[in-house]
């Protein structure tokens, strides 16, 4: 790997050139000043595919400093391949310290999840966003959706959600569930499960959203009101799990379903791997878990 590190020497700190960082930084400041509004920015081609986190990577690269401690997760886990790949990218190009510990990180880049641990005021959560426009599934045209946002004309969204209730008895959106930010803009929370939506509300951390392919940046400042859209007779309900994590016994975390055989065998484990590991380290043991021993490899 040292040969690769050598090859990166020709690039600027955190890969992006300073001019690009300035452009992104300006967009971030506007995004913070207009919570939930999607600021267009001149997204660059990154050395990873569009749709794989180029927006999040550009935002992280623009804010990252040598003293930051970076955590990267995908599906809640630090060890999923794309999270590993992005973490390696910043290790190589910025030489920053990385961590899997949620509490230690100053910047957390994520795809699809918000960590279970409550985020603190000194932290920044950077989301990778595929489709930043919450109205896109109702109206494919940017020229139309932009006008809807300008007029705060969100009736169509409510109609769609209510149609779901009429048809299915439920709002059929289980992830990327739209929210209203600071009583003004309807915003796509990136496809996090709606389980995570309440964590965005009044979070201590600054939340930044980067959509590289769609060239948009938006933000939720800390301590900002974020409300999941709903109706009086059908209030918003986050997904609930009926059983605890099989490894750590957590009752309040988001679970991944793991298929264990082809005869209907399955188990549920925490999606947030750090959350699960730290609980097990504290001595919590789930139905199928084993107490953590110092040598984790021996768990086989």
């Amino acid at each position: 790997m040292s040969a690769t590190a050598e090859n990166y020497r020709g690039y600027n700190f955190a890969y992006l050139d300073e001019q690009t960082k300035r452009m992104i930084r300006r967009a971030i400041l506007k995004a913070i000043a207009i919570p939930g509004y999607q600021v267009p920015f001149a997204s660059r081609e990154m050395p990873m595919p569009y749709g794989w986190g180029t927006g999040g990577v550009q935002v992280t690269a623009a804010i990252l400093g040598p003293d930051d401690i970076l955590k990267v997760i995908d599906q809640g886990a630090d060890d999923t391949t794309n999270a590993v790949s992005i973490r390696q990218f910043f290790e190589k190009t910025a030489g920053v310290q990385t961590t899997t510990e949620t509490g230690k990180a100053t910047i957390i880049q994520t795809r699809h999840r918000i960590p279970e641990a409550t985020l603190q005021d000194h932290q920044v959560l950077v989301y990778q966003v595929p489709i930043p426009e919450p109205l896109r599934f109702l109206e494919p045209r940017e020229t139309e959706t932009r006008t809807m946002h300008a007029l705060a004309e969100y009736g169509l969204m409510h109609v769609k959600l209510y149609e779901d209730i009429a048809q299915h008895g439920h709002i059929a959106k289980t992830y990327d569930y739209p929210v209203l930010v600071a009583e003004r803009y309807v915003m796509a929370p990136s496809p996090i499960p709606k389980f995570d939506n309440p964590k965005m509300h009044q979070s201590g951390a600054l939340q930044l959203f980067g959509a590289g392919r769609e060239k948009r940046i938006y933000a939720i400042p800390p301590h900002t009101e974020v409300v999941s859209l709903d109706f009086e007779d059908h209030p918003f309900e986050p997904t609930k799990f009926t059983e605890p994590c099989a490894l750590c016994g957590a009752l309040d975390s988001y679970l991944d379903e793991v298929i264990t055989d082809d005869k209907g065998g399955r188990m549920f484990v925490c999606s947030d791997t750090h959350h699960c590991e730290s609980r097990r380290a504290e001595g919590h043991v789930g139905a199928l878990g084993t107490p953590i021993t110092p040598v984790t490899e021996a768990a086989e």
Partner: protein
Amino acid sequence: MYVAVKGGERAIANAHRLLDHERRGDRAVPELSPTQIDEQLALAVDRVMSEGSLYDRGLAALAIKQARGDLIEAIFLVRAYRTTLPRFGYSNPVDTGRMAIRRRISATYKDLPGGQVLGPTFDYTHRLIDFALAAEREVAEPLTAPVGPDTETPRVTDMIANDDLIERNLKTDETKPVGDLTRDPLAFPADRDLRLQNLARGDEGFLLALGYSTQRGYGRNHPFVGEIRMGEVEIELEIPELGLTASLGAVTLTECQMVNQFKGSLTEPARFTRGYGLSFGHCERRAMSMALVDRALRAKEFGEERKGPAQDEEFVLSHSDNVQSTGFVEHLKLPHYVDFQAELALLRQMRSEFEARQASSHPEAAE
């Protein structure tokens, strides 16, 4: 016993190593050099340069080698490299009227000043597999003809314009900078400069399909190939500090000027309209497709009803870029199990509610 999957880092490193092995193939077969790709797969290089938006034959050839011949992957490599290059300045607009022509054909005139020059074209080859090519064989030197120093090859559209029978090219507003979608995010409606830039780097297959659709009635615009020309054009840079114009060298370009459906009004005499295509290298198919789509996208300007996808600016410009589209289509293979789990949970809930309803309406069936 279930153990959470670990070792992503090692898996990635091993996958890269395996990929490198597959790229190389059988070690007993001589390794391909970028020079060979540049010389013998030159049209692949041309496409990668066009859609990669970077004129560098050696780099495009290397990208093709690294991408194992996957041209969209090679285009992506070139684009990602291009982004890191600093900009020193902006060249003067190239003058294709002064092109050193290697190929030039017109479908609108039988003969014309400068003549019809077939050049290196597949057009009249019979598409029969040449089995002799499987082995090395002698290739005859091409024939040449003397070119007089005064041989002028004026552009066909300029000749039509001399008779005032084709729309004048729009006067450029000197005070307005030419748009650049790599520096400013695309906003709609987009002006023609941005549209042409978008099409010039657009996916060839996408442009081809859209161009074809206009011919089949989805936004017909009655095209004639006024001219296709291919050859070398000087790139010149103005250096105001030194008060001189420096030549940076020559690039190969293919230009297609379509002459389309005429347009007139009570106040304006009828004239043909234009569709324009330009590409790095010898990329005739893409230059022609681009010209068809350019014209189709001008529907609003000419007050035409927009009914074909090729006339829909937002649709065309948002989906033309294959680096974007391949990234997003392929991102579906990344893990999505968190969101899938959310869907599963709701689906199961709806199912159990459904079953409860069924059971309560047919209590005996539940026995």
